[in-house]
């Protein structure tokens, strides 16, 4: 049980860490000043959630590792985030669509988890659910503006939908770990969140006059640590300081 809980928490924490990392790459490079604020703001929410999850995971593991040990000192094959969060940022529309997808998945997740039998998780969820609702709103508004904006912005949003489509299904993937969490009343089964996700994204796409086209082949493997080639370069930067100065306090 605690093995499954640990894996479950690491998956969730890694999702948030890596997506926060990607968003933070935008700092100072956004299309307008308001977004130069919004990007680190959302990244900050994600890193905050990651910290809470790693701290709890470290506690569950009980081996004296810290949040930073878990975030910085694992091997690439041990990171278990879904593939969507590690995708390169692409253009602003692509980043906003990725954000919408992730938030639209997390929002019902956190809502359910806020009544989890696991009180620590419930506490994390209660805070996260509000932040996630803001991410949906913010990213969703952009998807609408860009989908129903100019010819170019529409073309770019369609390209983003196409590029991210293979990574949507993995969010809803279940396995023995998720089954155990569900059974124990800790967290919802990912597949059970699909309807809500489809409603959220569907409403926004309708307003944006965009259509979701599922990918011919879904990509998977992140939960088993099989990443894309972009992941290694994320980790080279992320881990650089911790690897270079082992044992130092910052």
């Amino acid at each position: 049980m605690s093995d499954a809980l640990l894996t479950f928490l690491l998956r969730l924490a890694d999702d948030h860490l890596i997506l926060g990392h990607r968003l933070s790459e935008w700092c100072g490079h956004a299309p307008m000043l308001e977004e130069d604020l919004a990007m680190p703001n959302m990244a900050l929410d994600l890193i905050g959630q990651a910290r809470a999850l790693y701290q709890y995971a470290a506690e569950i593991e009980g081996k004296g590792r810290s949040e930073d040990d878990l975030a910085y000192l694992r091997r690439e094959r041990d990171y278990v985030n879904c593939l969507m969060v590690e995708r390169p940022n692409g253009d602003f529309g692509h980043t906003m669509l990725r954000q919408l997808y992730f938030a639209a998945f997390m929002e019902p997740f956190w809502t359910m988890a806020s009544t989890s039998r696991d009180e620590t998780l419930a506490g994390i969820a209660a805070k996260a659910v509000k932040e996630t609702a803001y991410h949906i709103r913010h990213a969703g508004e952009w998807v609408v503006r860009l989908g129903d904006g100019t010819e170019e912005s529409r073309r770019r949003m369609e390209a983003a939908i196409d590029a991210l489509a293979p990574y949507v299904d993995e969010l809803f993937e279940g396995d023995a770990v998720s089954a155990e969490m569900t059974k124990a009343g800790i967290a919802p089964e990912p597949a059970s969140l699909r309807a809500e996700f489809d409603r959220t994204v569907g409403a926004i796409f309708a307003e944006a006059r965009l259509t979701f086209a599922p990918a011919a082949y879904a990509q998977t493997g992140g939960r088993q640590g099989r990443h894309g080639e972009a992941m290694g370069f994320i980790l080279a930067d992320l881990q650089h300081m911790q690897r270079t100065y082992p044992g130092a306090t910052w």
Partner: protein
Amino acid sequence: EAFLAAFQARIDAEDKIEPNDPMPEGYRKTLVRQIGQHAHSEIVGMLPEGNWITRAPSLRRKAALLAKVQDEGGHGLYLYSAAETLGVSREQMTEELLSGKAKYSSIFNYPTLTWADIGAIGWLVDGAAIMNQIPLCRCSYGPYARAMIRVCKEESFHQRQGYEIMMTLANGTAEQKDMAQDALDRWWWPSLMMFGPHDSDSQHGDRSMKWKIKRFTNDELRQKFVDATVPQGEFLGLTFPDPELKWNEERGHYDFGPIDWDEFWRVVKGGGTMNRERIAARRKAWDDGKWVREAALAHAEKRRARREATKLAAE
């Protein structure tokens, strides 16, 4: 003449000048230049620190750095708004920044080479900025003064955070201590340069003082900064890269060595390590974002048109 005298009387009476008040063109221009430069500094200032976000050595520091960079964007926003009250648009100011016409604080043309630079920027650069900015909270132009009150609060938080990073390094491993010393060595003199040329060489000083845009001269502020900062550095056990730095009992101030003004002007005029790259990064963000801004406008227009069509149909 009579108008100028009346205006000066308001200033002398510590009245706040507000956007719709009449004001001399020189006053308006000086403010536009200064607020614009200040806003641009916040915006460009996101870059050297942003450079370390993906490599921040702990999650706690990463979160703090994200929050700091976000605050800087926020300061830029207040300041652009303050400048807009003087009739200059954000687009216009942005174009002036990107074309190189408008200046920003030259310190951001130095690169952040190690994590300790993040500490040094908070401690020294934000420290110097606060020295400059606290008197601006009492600036005669109301919107600027009010913006500065908010900015100063956050800046002093950043300054403490930066100092705490330096403290952690100074109390850390030998390598960390080296890193802190190296950062102090590189950032100390540029921080002193942040206060601008000596009063004797300063272009805009006198008029700004008279109009109570500024309340202290460059040299006064620089001295205040040195006096406040040196004991902090000594407490860290670090050495300032200035053999002439020492307490002058008589003056009640620290004496310090001569500033390399050639370096200052070189960096101001484009010869710093990062000048080209800072502007190139902002220009790229602006150019790459063009389609986004256009789409936002087009969408707003479509919405408006649809709303009107609905209203018309309903009538």
